[in-house]
């Protein structure tokens, strides 16, 4: 199935979970990433079980602490 990851269309296996997608996308500091699915926050405690559907839009939001 096709989903949109960070604005880019990706082919992934049907019923992929958020945790699987995080691994597949080599997300940096995966323990601390915020995930939104179709403009709604996904709860981190559900990453292992929440599956994605055709056409879902996923964003990874990262901590960025620098500034000085």
């Amino acid at each position: 199935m096709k989903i949109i990851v960070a604005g880019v269309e990706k082919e992934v296996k049907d019923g992929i979970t958020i945790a699987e997608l995080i691994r597949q996308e080599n997300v940096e500091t995966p323990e601390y990433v915020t995930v939104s699915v179709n403009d709604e926050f996904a709860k981190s405690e559900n990453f292992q079980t929440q599956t994605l559907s055709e056409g879902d839009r996923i964003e990874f939001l990262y901590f960025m602490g620098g500034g000085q």
Partner: protein
Amino acid sequence: MAFTNEQLERYSRHIILKEIGVGGQKKLLNSKVLIIGAGGLGAPAAMYLAAAGVGTIGIADADEVDLSNLQRQIIHATDNLGQAKVLSAKETINRMNPDVTVNTYRTFVASDNIMELIGDYDFIIDGTDNFPAKFLINDACVMAKKPFSHAGIIRFKGQLMTYVPGEGPCYRCVFKNPPPKDAVPTCKQAGVVGAMGGVIGSLQAMEAIKYITGTGDLLTGYLLTYDALSMEFRKIRLPKDTSGCAVCGDNPSITELIDYEQAECSGV
């Protein structure tokens, strides 16, 4: 307040813009912006706001100018080494624009001083380098109903968002709690290109100018990310539902400011 001839000339490129004009320039001259952190982000933000004629600029920073700062903190120069950053920044702003009153606060922000610091200002710019300060600024601005611009930079990447009370998610809506110390790389460990502060700090100044003059659409409800290596900007829509947020939600569990413990990222 009438403009002097010198002011008409100095701000002529603003005044000619239909979105700013004489009215907008007056708003800028009457406005007060607080910049927390006179570093990579705060330096360009402060300089553009000073040049723009923001009438009162507050600068809060506890550090002194260090040689490793000068690669990006362009408000400070080689002959400011060892000087308090707030004083060095004030000197630069005074040379740039005599219309600007600069208030200096040589201090780290903490739960016991931030409400007083932000109280007098119309817009706050988060130019800090560490998560405890970023969460503190967010929570204080939510509680005091102050708009602010959040930003972060590292390596070749930067991002920012704007919070306006009642108009969308706050920083904590998105990021919940500070990550443990050293869990997420810092600038000092990871490095940052100096121009990244210029790009993102200037965008923060632009958000302040737009907020003050009531021009255009702010980055409320969005996170703007910039990747210099791929040369990509992305305006990511943030979830609208803020009801469950621990500080800005319907039943906030955080009602007092928190001093999280974490070493500075790259202040020196």
